[in-house]
Every structure is written in C-alpha cells, then in structure tokens.
C-alpha cells in the first residue's frame, strides 16, 4: 500500500519558440522546470497553480503525450521515459488520463460503447465475449444510465460526458489516473458528484491520482498531499492539511488567501498578489517568484532557492520560509 508507484526526477519540458517576422529569434519556453516528486499507490497528489504555470503540461509530460526534454519518470518499477514508442503504447493502459473538456475529448463519431470498447480491444482486456457486458458494468459503476451505450457523447450533459471519460479511462484497469482539471468545465453542483465518484473509485480499485486543478479548495478535498506550481517550478509540496493551515511559501500563502470566504463578515488578512505571471520565455533570474514576492530580498534575484524539508514530508523552495 505504501510503495512508491510514480517518481519524477528533475523532469523538464521545454518548447522551442520562434519570434519575429522571419522567426529569426529562437527562445525556449520552459513549461516544466526540474520537477521532482513521488506518488504512492492509492494516494492522491494534488497539483495547484494559476493558468500557465505548467501543471497540465506536467501531467501530459508524465503521460508522455509530450516527450520530456530531460529528466526521468519512474512508474511501477520501470523507467517510463526510456520506453520505446511501441513498449510505451503497450504500457499505456497502466496510466490513464481524464481531460478537462469532456466532450471535446470524446470522438464525436463513436457511440459510448465504441469509445469504451476500443481500448479494451486494442489491449485485449477481458475475453472478447465478456467485453460488451464489461462496458455496461463500468458505465454502471460510473453512474451512467444503462441505455447510454448506443448514444453519442454529444447527447449527454457535461457531468455525464465526464463520467463517460472516466469510464473510458477505467476500462483499461489502470493503476494511476491523471485528472487534468476534471471538474473545472462543470457546474458546481455536478462538480461535487464527479469528485465523490472519483474518491469512490479510488477506494474501490486502489487507484493513485494526480489531481490537477487551479482550485486549491477542491484540491485539498481530493488529495492527501498538495504540490504548488509556479512558472513550471514545484515551489512547495507537503501534506494537504499543512499546506492549507500553515503554508510556507509566499505564493502558497497568496493562493490560500484568494480562496473565497463563505462568511462575508469574517475579516481575513488580505495579501493579494500584484502583477502577472512572467512569461515562461523571459523568466526572471533567481527565484521565479521574486518580481511578485513581498518577502523579496537581493538574494532572491541572484539565487534560485533549492527545495528543503521544513517539516516531515513538507518541502519548500524559498530562502525565507
């Protein structure tokens, strides 16, 4: 139960960018910058951060839907980044992904049954005679009506479409699911249903989750540990309760401060962030957060802080935390 399922070591994903009328200026956009963390079987790691901080890219790079620029991913005891294309495809069933936009992620020409059946057929999951029943069983587990098999994805509501996406991922009996903003396209009322479904499934199948979200409250509800990303860097990672109650990194503090308070009369110390996230092409030297940080000193402009353990299993990349 407590064994490490996934480990990333110094994972980097950068994209070449050409600017200028003739594309004469070459840059590298570093979307994921030396990210290292590990995930145990049956555990959920939440990843939070604002738009463009590289959390989705990190998910896609772990899946190897993007090829990592450097670094290593170890998954289920194998070096995931060293697998050849064919081997990777065969191992894909172990690691599946749930996408943000449920409808766009489903082939509009395929019925629900075809969507779920296709990966089973490719990987030979279950005996072929049982597959059709298996599709119905998975749909039932994910809370879909039994008459949905012959309908097309666009005929369903957003919540149901995401249930189809989850059913599709489960069809391969994976060990780990990467949930990339699985509820951010949904109504608030439906969000809770999907989140509860994901938690039930985790218990039932002993799944590990990487739960990517920009909403720290949702992430805390889902995860045992939370990682906070800023400009491609994992700036803080630790147990959820600790992150929420005693955040160490100034960026994490600001994120938690930004969570809306349900009781309007309650005063809270507001310390909002000023400015925008710097472009990942033109990164500030030193600590990536220094232009927006209220703790900023000269040292932050020169030296990128290393990750250090401030309490058990709680790591922060800040000189002053």
């Amino acid at each position: 139960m407590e064994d490490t399922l996934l480990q990333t070591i110094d994972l980097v994903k950068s994209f070449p960018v050409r600017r200028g009328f003739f594309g004469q200026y070459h840059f590298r956009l570093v979307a994921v910058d030396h990210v290292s963390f590990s995930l145990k079987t049956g555990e959920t790691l939440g990843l939070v951060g604002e738009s463009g901080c590289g959390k989705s890219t990190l998910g896609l790079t772990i899946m190897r839907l993007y090829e990592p620029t450097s670094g290593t991913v170890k998954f289920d005891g194998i070096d995931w980044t060293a697998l050849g294309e064919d081997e990777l495809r065969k191992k894909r069933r172990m690691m599946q992904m749930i996408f943000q936009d449920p409808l766009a992620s489903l082939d509009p020409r395929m019925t629900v049954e075809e969507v779920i059946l296709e990966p089973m057929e490719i990987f030979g999951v279950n005996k072929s005679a049982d597959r059709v029943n298996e599709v119905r069983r998975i749909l039932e587990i994910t809370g879909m009506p039994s008459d949905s098999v012959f309908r097309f994805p666009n005929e369903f509501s957003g919540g149901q479409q995401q249930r189809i996406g989850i059913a599709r991922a489960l069809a391969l009996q994976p060990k780990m699911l990467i949930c990339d903003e699985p509820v951010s396209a949904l109504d608030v009322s439906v969000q809770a249903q999907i989140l509860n479904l994901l938690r039930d499934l985790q218990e039932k199948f002993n799944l590990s989750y990487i739960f990517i979200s920009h909403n720290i409250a949702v992430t805390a509800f889902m995860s045992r540990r939370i990682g906070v990303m800023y400009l491609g860097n994992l700036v803080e990672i630790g147990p959820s309760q600790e992150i929420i109650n005693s955040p160490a990194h100034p960026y994490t503090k600001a994120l938690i401060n930004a969570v809306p308070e349900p009781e309007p009369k309650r005063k809270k110390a507001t310390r909002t962030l000023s400015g925008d996230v710097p472009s990942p092409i033109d990164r500030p030297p030193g600590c990536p957060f220094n232009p927006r940080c209220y703790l900023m000193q000269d040292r932050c402009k020169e030296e990128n802080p290393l990750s250090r353990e401030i309490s058990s299993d709680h790591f922060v990349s800040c000189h002053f935390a």
Partner: protein
Amino acid sequence: MTRYFLSRLAGILGVLIAVSMITFFLMKIVPGGPFDIMGVQANKNIPDFIKENLEIKYGLDKPIPVQYLIFMKNAVKLDFGYSFYYQGQTILEIFQNQWPYSIQLGLLTMGFSIVVGIGLGIGAAMHQGKWPDHLGTGVALFCLAMPSFVFALLLQLVFAIKLGWFPTGGWDSPENWVLPVIANSLGPVLILQRFTRSSMLDSLRSNYVRTARAKGVPERRVTFVHIFKNSLTPILTVGGPMLAGLIVGSFFIESIFRIPGIGQFWVTAIQNRDYPLIMATTLVWTIIISITYLITDLLYALVDPRVTFMKEK
C-alpha cells in the same frame, strides 16, 4: 427522414421549373435563330419564305409562352425533339450515344483523384512541414498553375509520341483511358489535396485525438479512424459538386483525346442556337447538381452522427 427526402425532391422540382423557364426565355431573347447560324456557316442567305416555313415546321412561329408549354409537355416524357443542328438526331439519341463516354471518363477521373488527392492530403497533414507535405503542396501548385489542355498536350507528346506507351486518343481499351484521366484530374486533385490537408490538420489538434493516443490506440488507427473520419465533412462538401462537374464531360479533354463524349455538345449548343439541345443540357445539369447535393447532404448523416434530419420537437 422520408419526409425530409420528399420535401427535398419537391424542392428540386421547383428549381427545375424555375431554371427551365429562365433559360427558355433568355434563349429566345438572344438575337439570331438556329437557321441564321446555318445560313452563315453555309455561307449563303436562306430566303425569308423558307425560314418562315422552317419556323412553322418547328413551331417557332407561336407565342413564346405557348412554345414553352409545348416544350415542357414533351420534356416531361423525355421527348426533347430533334436537334436543330445535328440533323436527323433526336436529343435523346445524342445523350444516349455520347454521354456514357463522359460518365466513364468522369468516374475514372474521380476515382483517380480521390486516391491521389486524398492520399497526398493525408500524407501532408500527418507529416506537416516534412517532405510529404512539400510534395503535396508541390503537386497542388502544379495542378493550379498548369492548364489542363496544355497538360493534356504535354502528356500526349511525352507518353504517346516520344515514349509510345499509350495511344494518343480514342476510348476503346483501358490503355486509352490513362492519359485523359490524368489530364482531367488536375483540378480535382488540387481541391481534394488542399481540403483533406486542412481538414485533417483541424482534427489532428482535437482533444479526442489526444485521448485516442492516451488510450494507447496505434498511430495508424489514430490517423484513419479518429482523424480521417472526422475530417470527411468538408471533403464531402467539395467532392459532391466535383463529381457532378466531372460526369458531364470535358470539352477540352474529350476534344484533345478524341473521346466521343458529350462535352462539346454543351459548348456548341449555344453557338448553334440549338434550342432543344440548350434546354436539354441545362435541365440535365440542373438535375445532376441537385441530386448530388441531395446525396451529399444525406451522406453527412452517415459521416457525422450529430447530423439529423428530424425536426426538433
């Protein structure tokens, strides 16, 4: 579905009536009649009294609306009468004798263009920026810049005269078909290549393609099942009318390769003021275009399950 089909057929009928009426009256307004043209071509004046007799014989002395009604009454029975210009041949005979050649040429051209055009389009989209993309763009550019009649003559010069691989013309055996089909396919290949490429590139970036890869679907299956099938709608949109254009024959290609098709009749009918032939060709063209659009619309439903012909309740 049946309702939809019937209402579309009624629409085609309406279009036919409108087109026939407009064409008929325009044709009569244009100065000069069929017998003037014959006189000019024979280099002699036909005396007025002979012309009057001819007009009475062919019913051209009656008021124009009456002529129209008589024409339509016969046309419904597919009786378009005799050609004014090709003496001794009925319009129906001309179509029966010549059109099969054009249909055959058109279908072969369509088949060839689908294989080459869509093939090059798929290759270009799947290897964007690499040599298959440049090859596809190169071929498309060639098709755009090269007039088909020049290309036809070049093909004859190189493959028929210099190399002697194929005959210069005729239509008797499959080896006669090769050069005309290639020459005729410039436009279709161009259009299919460009549309396939751009439509595939659209689907290529879709989220469901990413999902398919995440599911571990092999790349070949991703290309043909998830990307290509979702790119078919725009290809169908240009492909339907293209087929209609191809099966009515080609004036240039048929003339250059001595194919006894119907292409030249479409062009010469107007010069010759061959009233029955003008009407027949126009109506046939209208019917073909209407039917291909209808078939194209029905095929959309086959290609994309989101298309439905039911009325929203």
